[in-house]
């Protein structure tokens, strides 16, 4: 397990290790140092490139349960940690690629929401499994393949695959997997971005509880029938 520590957590080094990290105990109740405790290794690092804001001053601390400094060198662990953003990418994939502009899910009941979420995660899982198969065929990392292109190839293949016989279908599937494997993403570079978003600005007032959550008033009439001139 490898995680980042919050800045306000105080730790006292217990044993210093050869690769620059140290061992310490962390407790369930860290402020009072009581409760169940665990022996962990702490690694501190900072950035060196001057272009990056906070380089040299901002120290980030990682805590890990991998205690052996020779099997798991500290520098390598520190290099590995930023790859945590893979999870953010994966969370973003169903959202941006598979749902585009819809603000919410579409189900009106909790059961429907759960059904829809399961289907969404299933769709993502199935697509990624497909990409894994394609990548294994080519011998490359699955993260190098493009999800949007996979969807496009899938879409284009639905009609032809439905029309052919079973034998031909098998060859076609292999060919399609090959094509998916060709869609490579460019090499990922180091990206550093502050965690902020642009705020959308709207001229209109915000909906408040007193505005009520009822649907708008809809009358099955023409304006002829409800308008009257005032003299």
């Amino acid at each position: 397990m490898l995680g980042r520590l919050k800045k306000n957590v105080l730790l006292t080094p217990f044993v210093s290790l050869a690769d620059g990290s140290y061992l310490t105990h962390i407790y369930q109740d860290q402020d009072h140092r009581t409760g169940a405790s665990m022996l962990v290794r702490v690694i501190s690092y900072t950035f060196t490139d001057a272009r990056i804001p906070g380089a040299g001053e901002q120290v980030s601390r990682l805590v890990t349960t991998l205690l052996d400094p020779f099997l798991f060198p500290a520098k390598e662990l520190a290099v590995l940690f930023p790859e945590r953003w893979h999870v953010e990418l994966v969370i973003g994939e169903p959202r941006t690629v598979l749902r585009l502009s819809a603000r919410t899910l579409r189900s009106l009941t909790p059961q429907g929401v759960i059904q829809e979420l399961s289907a969404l995660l299933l769709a993502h899982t199935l697509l990624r499994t497909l990409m894994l198969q394609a990548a294994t065929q080519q011998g490359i990392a699955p993260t190098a393949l493009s999800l949007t292109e996979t969807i496009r190839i899938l879409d284009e293949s639905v009609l032809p695959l439905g029309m052919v016989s079973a034998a031909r279908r098998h060859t076609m599937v292999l060919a399609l997997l090959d094509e998916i494997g060709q869609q490579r993403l460019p090499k990922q570079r180091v990206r550093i971005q502050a965690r902020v978003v642009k705020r959308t600005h709207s001229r209109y007032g915000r909906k408040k509880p007193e505005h009520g959550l009822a649907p708008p008033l809809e009358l099955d009439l023409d304006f002829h029938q409800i308008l009257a001139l005032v003299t």
Partner: protein
Amino acid sequence: MKTSSYGEPDYAFGQRMLTLRTQIGLTQAGLGERLGVSRRAVVKWEGGLSYPSVGHLQALIALGVELHVFAAGGEAEEIRALWRVSHQKVLLDEQWLQGLLATGRPRPPQPRRGSSPARPSTTVESRPPGQLVAPLVGRAAAFSQLVDRYQQAQQGQPQAALLVGEAGIGKTRLAREFVAWARTRGAEVLSGHAFELGGRLPYQPLVEAIGPRLEEENAPEDLLSDLWLAELSRLLPELRVRSPDLPAPTQDELTAKIRLFEAVARLLEALTQRAPLVLLFDDLHWMDGASLDLLRYLGHDWSRQSSRVLLLLTVRSEGLGPQSQLAVELSDLGRDLSVSQVSLQPLSQTETIQLLEAVVGAREPGEASPSRAVAAQPGESETKLSGLGDILFAQTGGHRNTVQIRRKERNETRRRMRWHTRSHQHHEKGNRLMIPTIRQIQEESKVCQQIDLGLLQEVLPSAKIEDLLETYQMWEDRERKLNMVVLTYWLIALHVYPRVSMRAVYAKLVSGQRAWRDDVPQQTPVKSAFSYRREHLGSELLEELFVQCAGPKATEQTPGAFWHGLRRLSIDGTVESVPDTPSNREAFRYSTDDAESQSPFPQARLVVLVECGTHLICDAERSRVPTRGSQQSAPALAAMEVGAEPAAVG
């Protein structure tokens, strides 16, 4: 199995089912065995998540009657209440109910109303075998209106109800059903039918109504004095035969008519003393002027005496134009009685198909083995259906809706006939049949083969879904366009094509098969069909499917997936906005409870565990509390593999 309306479970109904079952004294599984449903279905009934189907509810009620669980003397009321509460689409069959209660145990003798003349007991007509009886579908609203009128009449406010509709739409049918119902409530029913010739035969419907009633009366003189009977004998000469010493009716031409009217009025009044009266006159548009005059007179008399009368009239909407004579007469009548119009609309497509299916189910074709029903020869099933259509047409008296089926929906019903599986056998045997699995149906006819998700079907074969369906016992009797397998694929495809509408996604999936098979229906299901079926499918199946498909799949050879022998995983929490409905708000809170700064929509919270090398989601857990990621990760971490190395937010 039907599901309850969209939204909250119907707890009241569930409670009712629970008490019924405990009174019967069976476990959920036991009850399921007896009725031929799964235990899961009983669980859903008692949880208020679904309502039993007609057959099952009937079986349950029969069981209850057999074991005397309903309150003595009031079973019919209880059963009716139960039927109402369970939101069945078909009205409770009174004859079936009476038959059931009659055979159950001897009923205590009802105290007789009135005096010595024995009232003819209500006989339950036995249905002639082999005859098609179509259930009364889609007329619940009209029926309840009539019930209201009847109840008002019972209070002493004479009512008139006018059933208006096009020719053949089912007015007479509805009237007859209602009259049968009224009979079981103890009302006196007289019915007369005006026919086309009747315009030249004055008082013909009246004679038809009163004549038989007087015949079966033991002592007509109890009802009317001899004087008035004499007047009636103008219309009913058989009265003279029974009582030869009746005085002659008056010969005075001026007063003859009014005396006749008065006689009829007094007769009916005498009848209403004993029981509320329902007077049914069919096809008013053919009624002669004399009878209409009589009706006006009667109306005036009833309103004066506050009799307990319900006058039920059926009329064709063509005959009731704004300037027609009939409309004028009726408005006159409306001055004395309160006349309410009940207009009958044509049945919707679903109701028509329901009607047809109910009839087909009841018909019990002996030759329909599954392979035959799944007709390989299209010609054969076609003739079967057209023959059926003819029979239906004749039996239901030229039912307009049947005509619609034959004209417009022929393709739809032909396809349905073809995939009609063993449901009739299921009902017939009564006990738990082997549930027809999709593999028992002929290869060519599998509806789910019509859908193709292309490559995704390589990764998620339909066998997997079918296995889960068997585990959850969610098979249905009938093959449908939107069966569970199709629905599951469609739900997944909805997310693969986010910009495409629901129906278009379905069309996309079917497009491949449509190109070379000609039994794929042209019509895409309507939106509400998708919502309905989605609700039916529920969420457990998909959750389980996800659990089965998800998981870390990288090997040591996959570049970037492992590090020093450890699998790289990553964990984080996320939120998804859901639509702002009351039930969603209840289940998924906003980001905070503070109304000023909360999220615009309620949010569903997930904790997601991801494999970094492949970007596969290994596990996803729902969490309820809006907290930071660290607190949520504990339960998810428990599910991790040994030796896996995740990077977490601390």
